[in-house]
């Protein structure tokens, strides 16, 4: 059906030849249909006179409406098939691109994205997210971590200690993600988790979805104190951000080798958040033997 399958070790993914978009990931013995897109919210601009007129700014995320706009329905794609690594390189626009990596002997899929400078056209700011959509039946529930420690259960449009009326569907369901966000299909025993290399905002606005905000610009101050619009720049241009998501999925009921899915994810998080330090030094022309 136009899907191309690429595998490395025990991990595989499929993407659509026509659209260049991801269509599924296989790891830990389970194939999960999945799409991933880059989307954007348009930031609200108001006069900050009352809460309904508050602009989206440095302190708060407040989109113009609940609509989310697709940056591109297609990606141009290039593949690199090596013995240590497979890379699928996707270009969505001249300011969003991504490399999906499968390593031999690793138990995650890496999404290494580069976003920016965000275009400044259109008046409203742009708040860029990436959204992973699966077929998991998640019953309005998702999980986010708290400073890499306790995993907290989040239920859409619900707070455990008071009755909640949500008027802003997207921002009202956003939570801080320090290093992990996950969803579970309790009926089929499946879990999908995305581990981040930095804190981001995230949510699951529909069943089976995970979304994370990775970059934003806002053209109006939200009047909460910074006194300046959030449009960070360097070298006279809007910032370019590069970051990674580490994708893990499988059954949370079965053991994979001697590991559970949770312990596998903890191992990935430790190795990525306390990663090895790399130092280089010239050898002044000495051979390996002389240097040793």
């Amino acid at each position, binding site marked *: 059906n136009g899907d191309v399958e690429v595998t490395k070790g025990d991990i595989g993914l499929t993407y659509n030849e026509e659209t260049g978009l991801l269509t599924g990931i296989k790891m830990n013995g389970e194939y999960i249909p999945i799409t991933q897109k880059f989307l954007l919210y348009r930031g609200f601009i108001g006069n900050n006179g009352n809460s309904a007129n508050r602009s989206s700014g440095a302190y708060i995320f407040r989109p113009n409406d609940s609509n989310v706009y697709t940056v591109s329905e297609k990606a141009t794609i290039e593949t690199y098939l090596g013995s240590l690594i497979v890379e699928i390189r996707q270009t969505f626009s001249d300011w969003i691109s991504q490399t999906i990596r499968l390593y031999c002997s690793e138990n995650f899929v890496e999404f290494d994205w580069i976003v920016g400078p965000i275009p400044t056209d259109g008046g409203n700011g742009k708040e860029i997210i990436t959204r992973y959509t699966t077929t998991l039946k998640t019953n309005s529930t998702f999980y986010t971590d708290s400073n890499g420690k306790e995993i907290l259960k989040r239920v859409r449009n619900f707070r455990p200690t008071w009755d909640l009326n949500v008027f802003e569907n997207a921002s009202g369901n956003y939570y801080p993600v320090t290093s992990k966000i996950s969803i579970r299909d309790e009926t089929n025993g499946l879990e999908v988790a995305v581990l981040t290399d930095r804190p981001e905002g995230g949510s699951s606005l529909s069943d089976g979805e995970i979304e994370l905000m990775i970059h934003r610009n806002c053209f109006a101050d939200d009047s909460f104190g910074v006194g300046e619009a959030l449009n960070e720049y*360097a070298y006279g241009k809007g910032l370019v951000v590069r970051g990674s998501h580490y994708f893990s999925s499988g059954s949370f009921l079965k053991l994979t080798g001697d590991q559970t899915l949770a312990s596998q994810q903890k191992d990935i998080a430790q190795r990525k958040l306390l990663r090895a330090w790399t130092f280089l030094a010239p050898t002044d022309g000495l051979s390996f033997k002389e240097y040793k």
Partner: protein
Amino acid sequence: EDNLNSLREAMGVLQHHDAITGTEKQHVAADYARLLNRGFNQCSTATKTALNKLANNDTNNSSTAVEYQQCQFNISECTVSENENSFVVTIYNPLSRPVNNYVRLPVLHDNYEVHDPEGKKIATETISLPKAILNIPGRDSKATQEILFLAENLPPLGFKTYYVSKTEGVVSNKTHQEFQANPNKNS
């Protein structure tokens, strides 16, 4: 202590909620970056000394002390790997258990070989950098490729050193399929 204080002070300032959440003004963001960069640079003197100590190098003797350097791998920029025909890569594992770690180093050419601490040649790959990296504002590098290798079984709270050298001529036995636009599904 003096070399550590600069980064300690920067980290002290960056506990402020504006630095944590990004609610600072633009010129303050630039100043935070300046403070951190100065702290990193001054701290590198301490890490160099510590690594030399761990490696039992005589730090008082300039001929045996190693000039360890760190690079901005987030923008694939590194003076040492880009300019030296041979160099060593020391990888320190801060975890209390052994780990494997993939190493990526920006380079200008595609003919490099890597030897592990025992002198055994290990598998490497040279992969071209994404165009988006090459265009990052402020990146000051001629590197268009990265070499990739696996540093296996790094000891807990310890390190391994790999020797990287440029080889003559072109690598003939490529084991990979180079970037291919819109590859056919049957390939």
